[in-house]
């Protein structure tokens, strides 16, 4: 028995060592940068290339919401369709707005509750910072919104979903906020187009910075503060929509099933 264990252990260690050796040989990043990456790195924040740049130092957000913005728009649409489907499946299965059930002694101990009371606003601050700096540092609307949604989720688990409802965080309000976020995203996609329409110049749907044949675009700076045109608005509205969408889903999932 001991021998078998020893052999097994040695085999395991040797196979992991072999795997690591080969992984090291094949997966080491090279020092060369591919042409595609060079293009994005050179153009993402480059005032000397006015018709190519996005004026955002964060290349990932620039790619996600500008270079391939249409793709992201449809990804957002897929996410919300999934959410709508989940809510549609759960309709009439839950009861809401029943604060009289809330006796105040549900959930975890008073220690966890008190700590949650202080940390929830801090979580929201961190999430908002991630979302609102999406065009400057890694992060963005989805990440920020998902971080913010952690606060209601913790409150639901630590207190109870009825506590959230007594604080008047209802699915109707979350639906309103989410719809506002989605309308904002929709308006942002056509903002440059509307500017061009009113000025009588050529502009495109989903345009951000000025282009060769469409010299009108969104400003990269507002009052000297870098907002990278549409990127800031996309991140803001996406954060709003994701945070409220997730909160709504958490409430519906944790609500008591209606009897009968």
């Amino acid at each position, binding site marked *: 028995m001991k021998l078998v264990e020893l052999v097994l252990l040695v085999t395991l260690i040797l196979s992991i060592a072999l795997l690591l050796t080969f992984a090291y040989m094949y997966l080491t990043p090279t020092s060369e940068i591919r042409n595609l990456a060079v293009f994005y790195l050179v153009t993402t924040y480059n005032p000397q290339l006015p018709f190519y740049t996005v004026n955002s130092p964060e290349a990932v957000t620039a790619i996600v919401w500008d270079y391939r913005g249409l793709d992201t728009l449809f990804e957002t649409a897929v996410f919300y369709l999934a959410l709508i489907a989940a809510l549609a499946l759960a309709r009439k299965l839950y009861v809401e707005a029943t604060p009289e059930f809330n006796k105040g002694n549900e959930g975890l101990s008073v*220690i966890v509750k*008190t700590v949650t009371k202080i940390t929830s606003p801090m979580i929201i601050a961190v999430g908002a910072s991630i979302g609102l*700096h999406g065009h400057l540092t890694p992060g963005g609307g989805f990440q920020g919104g998902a971080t913010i949604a952690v606060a209601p989720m913790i409150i639901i688990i630590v207190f109870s979903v009825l506590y959230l409802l007594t604080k008047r965080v209802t699915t109707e309000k979350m639906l309103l906020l989410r719809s506002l976020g989605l309308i904002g995203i929709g308006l942002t996609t056509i903002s440059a187009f509307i500017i061009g329409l009113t000025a009588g110049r050529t502009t495109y749907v989903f345009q951000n910075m000025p282009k060769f044949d469409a010299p009108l675009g969104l400003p990269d700076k507002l009052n000297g503060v870098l907002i990278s045109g549409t990127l800031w608005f996309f991140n803001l509205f996406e954060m709003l929509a994701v945070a409220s969408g997730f909160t709504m889903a958490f409430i519906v999932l944790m609500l008591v099933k209606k009897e009968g």
Partner: protein
Amino acid sequence: MSRALNAFIVACLTFIVYIVFTGSVSIYDLMTGFIVAVVTGVLFSNIALSNALKVIDPRRWYILVRYAIRYFIIDETLAHVDVIKRILHPRVPVNPAIVKVPYYAETDYAKTCIACSITNTPGTVVVEIDENERVFYIHWIDAKTLEPEKAREFISKVFEEYSKKIFD
């Protein structure tokens, strides 16, 4: 009025966290941080605090700083040294037990402060709180006594004295 003060204090906390997490103090950060702080402060004004006047009492802050220095330098070090000795000792002299320890603090924040102080020192962990009986159930690596009042002398007496002055 008290709600506005509550909101202001939560907003201050949120603003500080926002700026620290962002790691920069440009006009953009200050402006967005201000807006986020105001919104969060209003949202959490009735949740996070019940009596904001205690937060702006400088005497409580003075005791809090004194407690923090005492706790992290003296109490933490003693507890660490004790547990390190037990780990490194060849016979591992532990005598674990879960003991009942009463508390006399009134507010939720004071109870939380005592419980976290106990848990954060190595060797003792609060595993449950019973608010009806007003006791903690504490797992103790070296249970010197099983008497609730005597255990309180060993474990939480000092923490409770300070916590009551800070939060009650």
